């Protein structure tokens, strides 16, 4: 079956990419000249953040898809994306905080990306939270889709506001990729492979979660549209 073959291929890709990433991240890539072994946190922090943003995009697209099609399959994709996105975004924030403390001595900075990512986490939590208000599958899906669309549209405005505010209050002189020397090629390859591994693993988790949600869907999972007329079969015969 094509679906099974695709799943097997995806699972294989996850295993291969993850194994390769582990070897590159922990063994092959050298420690950073300034940060030492702490820098290896980046190989999880950056892909986790990337995956969180990807899941957010999935939530937005699937939410719009549900609002247009009113098919709960779209809603399942959105729900699966949001659940994984919460985990990935929280992981990125926690690891970034640990990295910042070990590297710069601060647990938190008012960096625009960090603030925006935290706002994103709150939007995710709100998205999952409204599902618990009850009222049936389609009502929960509608509420969640509204939150998903609002979050998608609001986060750029939030990000721009914080960037502007940061520009006003502090010139961009903080340590960060833009002010650091170019990355060692081995480190860059390790980071890219880790990102690919996280992306494939996220796809696997989302696909499996959608399968679980579909298998546990309630019986009221029926399309909303009911045809106006029930088609009838009319037989016309020709008299001899």
């Amino acid at each position, binding site marked *: 079956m094509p679906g099974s073959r695709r799943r097997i291929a995806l699972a294989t890709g996850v295993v291969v990419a993850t194994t390769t990433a582990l070897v590159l991240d922990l063994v092959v890539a050298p420690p950073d000249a300034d940060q030492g072994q702490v820098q290896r946190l980046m190989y999880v922090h950056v892909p986790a953040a990337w995956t969180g943003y990807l899941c957010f995009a999935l939530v937005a697209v699937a939410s719009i898809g549900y*609002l247009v099609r009113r098919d709960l399959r779209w809603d399942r994709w959105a729900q699966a994306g949001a659940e994984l996105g919460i985990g990935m975004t929280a992981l990125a924030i926690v690891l970034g905080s640990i990295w910042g403390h070990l590297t710069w001595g601060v647990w938190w900075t008012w960096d625009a990306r960090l603030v925006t990512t935290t*706002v994103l986490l*709150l*939007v995710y*939590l*709100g998205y999952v*939270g*409204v599902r*618990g*208000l*009850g*009222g049936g599958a389609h*009502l929960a899906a*509608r*509420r969640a*889709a*509204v*939150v998903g*669309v*609002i*979050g998608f*549209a*609001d986060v750029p*405005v*939030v990000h*721009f*506001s*914080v960037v*502007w*505010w940061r520009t*006003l209050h502090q010139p961009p002189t903080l340590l960060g990729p833009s002010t650091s020397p170019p990355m060692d090629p081995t480190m860059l390859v390790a980071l890219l492979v880790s990102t690919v591994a996280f992306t494939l693993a996220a796809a696997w988790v989302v696909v499996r979660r959608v399968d679980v949600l579909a298998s546990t869907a309630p019986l009221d999972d029926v399309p909303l549209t009911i045809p106006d007329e029930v088609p009838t079969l009319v037989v016309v015969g020709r008299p001899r």
Partner: protein
Amino acid sequence: MNRSAAQQATHVLRRELALERAGREALVAVGPFVLASVLLLGLGANARTDLLRPLSPTLVWLLVLSAALPLARGVRAVEEDEDCWDTLRCVVTPGALLAGKVAALWLQLAAAWAFAAVLAAAALGARWSAGGVVAGAVGTFGVAVDVTLFGLLIGSSRRRVGLLGVLVLPAALPALLAGTQAASPGVRALPWLALLLVFDLVATALAWALLPVLLEE
């Protein structure tokens, strides 16, 4: 908006104001809260007005956003209590319903902002620039739109009461940032007022597009 929808919106607004006059729900929920907050802040900071004066715009906006949460729960509370929500959403067009509810909530939030600003001026020595005052009027409109939308989404559900904060506060973050910056001394207010305008437009467009979905129940 055609004339009929405009009339409907005006009727909804009048109805909201009449309900507030009769029940004083917003006044009772917001007024004492703002007064108590300013008082407690002054006491907690040892009456150090030199420290609190620069923070006045932030304080005022935080109070407005905090006051928005109980107001959000009241967006359709009366109609649900009287079991006439279904009638209202069938009789009034979605656009008119949104316009009327937003206008009423905007008046309430703007009044809360003004009250908090006056208290900050009196108790904390805050001075308000023209830009800060205009930001108060413009920013509270966008917050009113968000609060109306989320209030309609949550309804007066008794479950997950804290959810409104998680929904409203991140959405209203641009208003907080731009409102405080526009009121800060030495800061050019015009760019922040422009940002508030964009925030209002984005919020209004989203609410207008999504409201029919929320009214489908």
